């Protein structure tokens, strides 16, 4: 089950990366392709960091389930994957999702170009 959930989360990020016209990375970061995909998806889009902790929690729960299987941890991992899916789906529809908290890029870019 944990493999299926991780694969589902990766598929969500693959979709985001492809929508940006890139090929999803096959590499891993800290042992997780999911984290490498997140890093790729957030490149140049600081607001995508709004789902950074969600991805890290998915990886953490994946590891927890390796240690010991329990229904509650599995349910939490499922809800985390669902949250990632909702966020990315929302972001594909409304690019500005997450801008409120994570984007301070425009200011710095503007100053660099001046």
């Amino acid at each position, binding site marked *: 089950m944990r493999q299926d959930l991780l694969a589902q989360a990766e598929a969500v990020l693959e979709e985001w990366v492809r929508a940006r016209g890139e090929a999803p990375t096959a590499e891993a970061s800290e042992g997780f392709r999911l984290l490498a995909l997140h890093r790729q998806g957030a490149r140049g889009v600081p607001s995508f960091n709004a789902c950074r902790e969600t991805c890290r929690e998915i990886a953490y729960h994946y590891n927890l389930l390796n240690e010991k299987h329990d229904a509650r941890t599995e349910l939490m991992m499922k809800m985390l994957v669902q949250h990632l899916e909702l966020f990315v789906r929302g972001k594909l529809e409304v690019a*500005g999702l997450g801008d409120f*908290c994570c984007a301070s890029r425009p200011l710095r870019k503007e100053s660099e170009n001046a």
Partner: protein
Amino acid sequence: MSKYQRVAYYPGCALEGTGHAYNQSTKVLGSALGLKLDEVKNWNCCGAMEVKNIDPKVQTYLSSRVMSIAANEMGASVVMAPCNGCYHNLKKAEHDLAHDAGSREVVERISKKAGHATYQAGQVETIHALDWIKDGVGEDELKRRVKNSLKGLKVANYYGCMYTRPRHIFPEKDQGPGSESTSKPHFMDDLLAAAGAENVDFPLKTACCGGAHTLSDSDTSTKLVLNILRAAEAAGADVIATECPTCHSGLEMHQVRAEKVLGQKTRVKMLYFTQLLGIALGLSPRKLGVHENVSDGMEVMKKFA
């Protein structure tokens, strides 16, 4: 004596409107703990998201004016902002003024025109209400003052996004033991544990609630919030503790909307951490504005009050 015992208080616009109960409970709690708040005189909007999205440098100016009044007109060295949005924007302004010449130039120009002293980076330290209680009082002292332990109350702590993101504007965080973490914040957990509450393991504590799109794309926000509420319930929480008026009203409003539009009912209640701590100190829920919350926490809190 902690330097946080007496601070300049910047409530921000939300605490005068939807977050009135947060304003009230912050003041009442501070007073009960012997902490002093001097409200920033003639404060203005921090620039929130509206100005920030159109012209980030004007937002930097607006936040800098608040800090300038605190530093230059009130002689304060610490500004406390209980709203995540205000806290984030003041921190962002501080960072921009320290690292960006263009921002300094704009702030200086507008400040001169407005006729007040230009804020210089480093004049004040901006803190959140969580830092204020955690460092101004501390868990040990808080434990000593608890009259109604929150023992048996299961709490999911929701910090939202702006308390920790983006990481580079919070240089004091992630500094090892004792400091706040940007990936797994714990200050609210620590304070509520000191009051006797049982913090549940809640992995969505900084997850996006779609807050900024609550009006333009309500369905996305509702679904994101519903998932947060369900996760809190699945984790066994009776209440979600909040430390931001935007998060709080977002969770409350979308809880109602999820039931109305999606037919999905959740039962978890939302309370500000200041209300929960106040109840633990023996203050009446009414004095803490619990009755003002949309999500009716009176029933859950009755046994503790």
